[in-house]
């Protein structure tokens, strides 16, 4: 059994209930930096996107600061997300069961997970979020650099800048939608938050949503019995 669903730091601890290490401290910090950046970017970006949200610039010390800080947060996001990408990309590769998951998305939405195949560490929805974010962040950073007049004005024509800014806007709308799905899913699927806060989920959660991943964890725990891993705390 190939085990790329397993990421470094993943582990299972028998007990009552069973706990499962889903994210290491590093991964969680990485995620939250990315997440905070994304939120700040969304707020500052939206402030400049539509006059009805311009008041949000007050959070950043006014329009000048908002304009100045947004691209720098973008850089932080990009770097941070790149690291996240390196951590997570293997587990997010597409697999056969993902196609089945997709065809049964109605069951997903209605919570009938018993009708779904067993899933690895990420389901197709999460993979969609991961790859969506990856792609959109690439687009955003590229168009963002074109729009970053303070340093890059002279490298592109005004027409290019016009195209860049509209693409940037559209991509931003896209990424905000992806983000809404991501956050909503975390709220809807109870027990998920713990993964990114404490780093752990319960065995039941893993059993319910990522049974294949849980099985792999258990299997790998057995094979590594001689060298028990310390839980990620």
């Amino acid at each position, binding site marked *: 059994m190939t085990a790329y669903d397993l990421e470094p730091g993943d582990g299972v601890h028998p007990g009552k209930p069973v706990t499962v290490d889903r994210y290491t401290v590093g991964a969680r910090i990485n995620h939250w930096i990315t997440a905070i950046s994304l939120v700040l970017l969304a707020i500052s970006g939206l402030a400049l996107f539509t006059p009805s949200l*311009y*008041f949000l*610039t*007050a959070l*950043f*010390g*006014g329009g*000048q600061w908002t304009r100045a800080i947004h691209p720098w947060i973008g850089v932080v996001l990009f770097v941070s997300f790149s690291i996240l990408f390196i951590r997570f990309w293997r587990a997010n590769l597409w697999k056969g069961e993902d196609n089945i998951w997709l065809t049964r998305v109605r069951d997903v939405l209605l919570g009938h997970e018993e009708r779904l195949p067993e899933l690895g560490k990420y389901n197709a929805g999460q993979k969609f979020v991961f790859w969506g974010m990856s792609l959109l962040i690439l687009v955003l950073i590229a168009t963002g650099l074109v729009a970053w007049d303070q340093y890059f004005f002279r490298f592109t024509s005004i027409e290019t800048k016009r195209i860049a800014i509209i693409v940037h806007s559209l991509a931003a709308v896209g990424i905000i939608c992806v983000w809404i799905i991501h956050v909503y899913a975390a709220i809807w699927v109870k027990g998920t938050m713990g993964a990114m806060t404490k780093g752990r989920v319960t065995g039941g959660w893993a059993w319910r949503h990522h049974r294949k991943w849980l099985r792999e964890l258990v299997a790998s725990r057995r094979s590594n019995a001689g060298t028990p891993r310390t839980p990620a705390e």
Partner: protein
Amino acid sequence: MNMELSRRQFLGTAGAGLAGTTLGALGFGGVEEAHAAAIRPFKLFNTTETRNTCTYCSVACGIIIYSKGDLKKGEKADITHIEGDVDHPTNRGTLCPKGAALLDIVKSETRLQHPMIRRAGSDKFERVSWDEALNKIARAMKDDRDKNFIAKNADGVTVNRWNTTGFLAASATTNETAWATYKAVRSLGMVVFDNQARV
């Protein structure tokens, strides 16, 4: 705009922005209501006008010099702006690129401020008092004139000529300055005397 000034203004605004963040966080107070007058206050209000003519070419465009302070009232006057005089028949208020930038020559950083002397073989100017400078000049002139003045030529004709010292007169001084200069120079018998008519 003056970028130095504007930089300071920017830093000031930035400070206000930071303070505003705290307030803003409490309720986004009034940022979108920020209001500033677009129209700059007219900068010639409450200045003193003085009629003059442009110093450059002999079209002699009429100009108005605007200053803070009024010389006529015995005040110190600092020139702040110069503009064409609409009442002037020739230029009707217009000015060329030099006339339009006359303030720059009045306020030039390379305006001379003090009498200076460069001594023989030196590589610099040194400050000198007016008295010292003028005494030195007058003494040098008298010595040279007494030594080289030609009262009579070889034919015995009275010629009263001094041609070892020369004077190059200006091209933009007033007639009145020119006349004072003419009297002072010609009374010495100086003939090496010319102006800028040719160049």
